[in-house]
């Protein structure tokens, strides 16, 4: 009776990227929100430039004629559609993919994304200022979360769902490493008095809040927790949905399901890469990772995730096409 649904390679690719772009949008809103929170008097430009740095956008930022400063960075990410890493550009790319996926995704998914895209393609400069910025970030986060909820509740669970989740998990893991990176230098700051220690923990609290992990962390943290505990939580915690380790475990499960349920044999190499990644994360104590240089470690994880994305593309997508979305 029922027919086994086929999955066009192009659709799988579109789903993977649609999920990635939307996850990127949500995380960028989180980063912008937390950056505003980190602004310290007289050093705003420096705080905001950290955002450019962790996104590896320094060159683009300069090439597009921006000078470091709060307004320039906010505009670069919130209003500059020509910047491929901006929120409008990511939403444009997500909607482009959704348009090609319209035969597959639910009407409700399409409608919400269509409206969200329209609402976000004209962010006024005054919305990026003062208290309105945080509200704007909330709206952006909620736009993606609405998408996520509609997708969870309406999207058919075949291969497409699994490729969608892979895209989301890879992007989320990557974004969590970037969120950690924004504060990594705090770890190497010389330890001062109690006052400084409290201030430092408060900043880490901000990182946790940006990742929506503050309360969960407090539930499991010892009262005398250190920044290293926060790093461990974001890197390897098994229960926190944005931890790199949980994302990697879920990637493994998704790839396993693509193999077992859908018979996709091209998963072998991707599964190997995920196992390697998991070993790197779980194989040693977080304290050792920090000792070895957290920034360098995060950089390596990002490279591994890029390699994993490329491997999935080669194995399943239309990599025969020179203009495959990337």
């Amino acid at each position, binding site marked *: 009776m029922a027919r086994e649904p086929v999955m*066009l390679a192009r659709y799988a690719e579109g789903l993977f990227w649609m999920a990635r772009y939307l996850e990127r949008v949500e995380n960028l809103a989180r980063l912008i929100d937390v950056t505003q929170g980190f602004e310290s008097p007289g050093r705003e430009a420096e705080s905001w430039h950290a955002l450019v740095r962790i996104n590896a956008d320094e060159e683009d930022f300069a090439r597009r004629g921006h000078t470091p400063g709060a307004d320039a960075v906010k505009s670069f990410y919130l209003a500059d559609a020509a910047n491929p890493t901006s929120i409008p550009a990511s939403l444009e790319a997500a909607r482009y993919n959704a348009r090609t996926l*319209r*035969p597959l995704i639910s*009407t409700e998914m399409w409608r919400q994304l269509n409206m969200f895209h329209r609402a976000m393609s004209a962010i006024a400069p005054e919305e990026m200022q003062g208290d309105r910025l945080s509200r704007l970030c909330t709206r952006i986060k909620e736009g993606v979360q609405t998408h996520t909820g509609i997708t969870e509740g309406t999207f058919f669970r075949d291969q497409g769902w699994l490729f969608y989740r892979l895209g989301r998990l890879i992007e989320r893991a990557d974004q969590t490493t970037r969120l950690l990176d924004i504060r990594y230098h705090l770890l190497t700051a010389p330890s001062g008095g109690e006052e400084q220690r409290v201030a430092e923990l408060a900043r880490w609290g901000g990182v946790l809040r940006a990742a929506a992990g503050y309360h969960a962390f407090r539930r499991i943290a010892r009262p005398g927790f250190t920044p290293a505990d926060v790093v461990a939580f974001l890197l390897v915690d098994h229960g926190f949905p944005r931890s790199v380790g949980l994302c990697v475990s879920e990637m493994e499960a998704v790839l396993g399901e693509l193999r077992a349920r859908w018979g996709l044999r091209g998963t072998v190499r991707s599964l190997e890469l995920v196992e390697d990644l998991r070993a790197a994360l779980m194989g040693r104590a977080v304290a050792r990772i920090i000792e070895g240089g957290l920034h360098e470690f995060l950089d390596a994880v990002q490279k591994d995730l890029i390699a994993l994305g490329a491997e999935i593309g080669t194995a399943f997508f239309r990599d025969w096409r020179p203009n495959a979305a990337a």
Partner: protein
Amino acid sequence: MAKRTATRPGAGTAAEAALFADYDPGPYFCELTAARAGDGGATATVRARLAAIGLEALRARAAVAEGELIDLGVTFTVYSDATAIDRILPFDCIPRIITAAEWDHIERGVKQRVAALNLFLHDIYHGGKILADGVLPRELVLGNANYRPEMEHFPVRFGTYVHICGTDIVRGRDGDFMVLEDNARTPSGVSYVVENRHLMSRSFPDLMAGMNLRPVDDYGRRLHAAMAEIAPEGVDDPEVVLLSPGIYNSAYFEHVFLAREMGVPLVEGADLVVERDHVWMRTTAGLRAVHTIYRRIGDDFLDPTVFRPESLLGVPGLIGAWRAGRVTLANAVGTGVADDKAVYAYMPRIIRYYLGEDAILANVPTYICREKPGLDYTLAHLAELVVKPVGESGGYGITIGPRASRAELETARAALLADPANWISQPVIDLSVAPTLTEYGIRPRHLDLRPFAVTGRETWVLAGGLSRVAMREGSLIVNSSQGGGSKDTWVLADEVLAEGPG
């Protein structure tokens, strides 16, 4: 059962009089106010219900309904001067009503016409008996740009070339239906038929309540069934796909709609590959065979190795696979010769030739400018005639004599004289009108009707079709690319009102 409001006014109330006070269809047949036998009171009921809603509320609800089309991305793309704009097809909330008897007539006429088109195509690609018998000029067919020698002596299943046909029908002053043109290549618009109905039932349930209407949501299933039927013989559970040029095509929304309604993949050229004369689609699990392709790209772009070499939309080797009998294309290649505006003039004779019957739906009188009498008549009566190029679609290149300036008429005359064979002319048809919501209130606007016929082994016609409305006052051009809109088209089932007029 829902409670019915006791205060809803009946036909002929003061409210109705107010809403339609300024409404004057002039000399034209009006689809909602003309007295019609067999409507069971439906038109009066709709008028009364519209009046009960009132002009301001109609406007507000129509605006919400159009906003919904934007949110849903039910849009088409207009190309002009190197710009591309996504537009909605303006939706007019006042439905167009067709009685059961009228529909029966249209449906029989459309089926007859599709049968004749298919017999004609089969004949001209198998020796051309009709040409030998002199029913229409040989060069009109063989010299036609849409005639495809590749199709000669090529068998198609059930003799069906035109699997999806859109027949443009207009209604004259006396209410008679006439065919304005056949669309036998890749007619579009059916998605709006279904979307308009959905929109109507969400936004104006009170207009529809109790109306016994023929449903329109069976189109996808019927289409899928026909596409499966025509798959190459011996294929069990054939794989059907819809081939689209992609998201930049103006009809992309419709392609999505059709793929979804059929439940089949929407593919682009690069998703397909031909190997060993079979057509395959690229999936996550490798190549998978394809058996029927409902293609929404023109003949010229299908296969760069056979037709336009620069086409990136098509699939190299596709025609070879088709000729090898491994895949079916719908519509078949080479149907454009049958819906040519010059061949159209001969349709009454073509119908009689193959079916031995008179045309159930008449043609609009047509003068063929490639023939001297036709050209002479056209030149002598240019100011009274509509002059159309034979190869174009979408309402482009048309000159409407009575509306044209002297300069426009002279331009048309020069074009006619330069290449007479490229033109036909027709008298101005007094297209019927329907009450339409405008900024000035409820006003008559001209409209046509495009029913959609699906043919595999047999022909099925979707009840109703697309009613296209010229939104500008007095305009006769209903094409969406030229600012036309659309209406929900209600075909009354035999028993008109389940609960009597409201």
